């Protein structure tokens, strides 16, 4: 039982990392008033480009750089269509998701041996990706959970603190909040909302790239077609459940990471076929969490007029 709980918590930390990264960056875009469905595409691009360029160049550093660059390019395209050309954000986001999910199998089947996955395990040493932290090593229970995680997991902790600080305590963050509350008012006092959206998209691109790298380079050392598996959309749900506030969004991100970990840990105790059923857990969790967070709001809502979600 102790082992189960420890491994559950260990996997929760591991599985939450990409979700938390994606959430904390996505909060800015969402708060600035753009529904960013392209988070999913961002994770995919981050994961794919980091592995591809690692394989091509033979160095992980090149993979990391390209991951950031391509994520920025992707979000620049999103921004170009949504902010500059005023297209519908949902259509743009969903079609970017579809394009991005079709490009890796195309490139893989043309240039690499297998259509479904690309392994960089001969360049990436998975064991070296996990860090043994001296301070954590000696604390009994904590070390089992937090020690031997990947670098980005530790970095995520600081990124969340930093970006939350930016969100609440800097001029930029406050401007973003104002834009989210009332765009017209923000423009009236002379805030350049479009510029804010661009910066928010850039932040989100960087965090998405890191989330993708965490999944591909650090955890598995390979890319497969299902690597994002709706994590971007899960983050979007977390952000919405957390009412677009960074800390709350991250807490929901943790919750969804927990449900992912639960699925992984429970799968060890049943036969292979039943694991398919457990894969439903994360998605059902989201639906239930939505219900729990939204029912009280709608009970309070006594007006008959619809409320925009």
């Amino acid at each position, binding site marked *: 039982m102790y082992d189960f709980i420890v491994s559950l918590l260990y996997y929760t930390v591991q599985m939450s990392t990409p979700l938390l990264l994606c959430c904390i960056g996505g909060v800015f875009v969402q708060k600035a008033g753009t529904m960013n469905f392209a988070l999913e595409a961002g994770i995919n691009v981050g994961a794919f480009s980091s592995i591809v360029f690692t394989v091509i160049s033979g160095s992980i550093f090149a993979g990391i750089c390209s991951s950031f660059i391509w994520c920025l390019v992707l979000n620049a395209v999103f921004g170009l269509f949504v902010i500059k050309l005023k297209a519908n954000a*949902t259509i743009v986001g969903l*079609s970017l998701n579809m394009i991005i*999910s*079709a*490009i890796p199998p195309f490139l893989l089947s043309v240039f690499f041996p297998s259509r479904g996955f690309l392994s960089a395990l001969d360049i990436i040493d998975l064991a070296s990706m996990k860090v043994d932290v001296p301070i954590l090593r000696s604390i009994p229970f904590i070390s089992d959970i937090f020690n031997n995680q990947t670098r980005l997991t530790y970095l995520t902790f600081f990124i969340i603190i930093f970006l939350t600080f930016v969100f609440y305590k800097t001029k930029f963050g406050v401007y973003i909040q104002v834009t989210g509350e009332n765009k017209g008012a923000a423009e009236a006092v002379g805030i350049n909302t479009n510029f804010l959206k661009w910066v928010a998209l850039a932040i989100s691109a960087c965090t998405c790239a890191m989330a993708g790298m965490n999944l591909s380079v650090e955890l598995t050392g390979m890319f497969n077609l299902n690597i994002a598996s709706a994590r971007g959309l899960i983050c979007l749900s977390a952000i919405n459940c957390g009412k677009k506030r960074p800390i709350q969004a991250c807490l929901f991100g943790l919750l969804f990471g927990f449900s992912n970990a639960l699925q992984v840990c429970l799968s060890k105790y049943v036969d292979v076929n039943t694991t398919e*059923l457990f894969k*439903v857990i994360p*998605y059902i969790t989201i639906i239930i969490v939505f219900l729990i967070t939204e029912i009280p709001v*709608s009970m309070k809502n006594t007006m008959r007029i*619809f409320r925009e979600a």
Partner: protein
Amino acid sequence: MDSKKKYENISSTINVVIPLFLAFLVGAFFALMAGYNPLDVYFQIFAEGFGSFGGIMQSLGFATPLIMTGVATAFAFKSGIWNIGVEGQLYIGAMATALIGGGYFGIAELNLPSYVIIPLALLCGVFFGSLYACIPAAMKAYLGINEVVTTIMLNYAATYFTTYLVKCHFQGSATYDSTEMIMSSAVIQKFNPSYRVTWAIFLAIAIIVIIWFIQSKTKFGYEINAIGRQLEFSEAAGMRVKKKIFIMFLISGAIAGLAGGTEMLGVNKQFTPEFSTNPGLGWQGYYICVLSRQNPIAILIIAIVFGAFRYGSIALQSKIGLPLDLLNIIQGVLILFFSIQYLSPAFVKKVAQRGSADAVQTVEA
């Protein structure tokens, strides 16, 4: 007035032609990258899909489910609901139909004739498809939760859940993950065994006609149009918006379930978890819905074109090894560029006004 209409027509033509051109340009880039001649590729896809009687028959076969999923998405879209969950509802409907048609639950022993078992199986698919749509429908209508996120989540849940059902409870005699073959009495016949198209295409066309009738000739259709255009106004005018949205979602799910069912009984003849992947019939339905701007005739035409492209690409994939993913990229890019207005409405209005002013002047002169 005439010239205004003319400029609007020009504007909408430009809004279609430019995305098509750009999408094929991007596709050409990828084709070149893979070492194929893009013009040759496009010509061959077109020739395979439309070039021969057999090709057209195959294309219609691929188009049949697309028509239904397109209508399913578009019908909900008309009232401002994004039912991206057609994919999931299709899976659940297909599963239900495949189980009834495959003779599970002791249905095989009843020896029901075709005219009972086919409607029964399809109705089962319809029922479970709309039942699955109930979840996002209730959440959207009564709690105001964004339906795009919930429906996509439920898509994943449906895929995994049906995979689990196949693997653990309804594994057929085949060595791969699948249910039993459909009973011969439950099969929807093909026109000709060598082509993909079945009698279900008439069902698909009938659905288009029915939906067109509902949308343009009934009170319900008028109301959903109003809801799609101005939700607050419809609510204030006394329409039961929440109930209407709920019903819309259910109908959309029902059509999606039917699409899955006909695919099972006509083409696949057994449920396999991969029957609708890359990118999935429901997703293509969403493409068709966006491209057609929810016009029934346009849905029919675009679905057939998409079916032809799909068949052409599949044929090309087996012939010269060009990956099918190229088509998915082109379709995605097409939607992406389709989302923009190339001539700004203000510009169109200005030009149109100048045009009509000229017309007035010529009359005066």
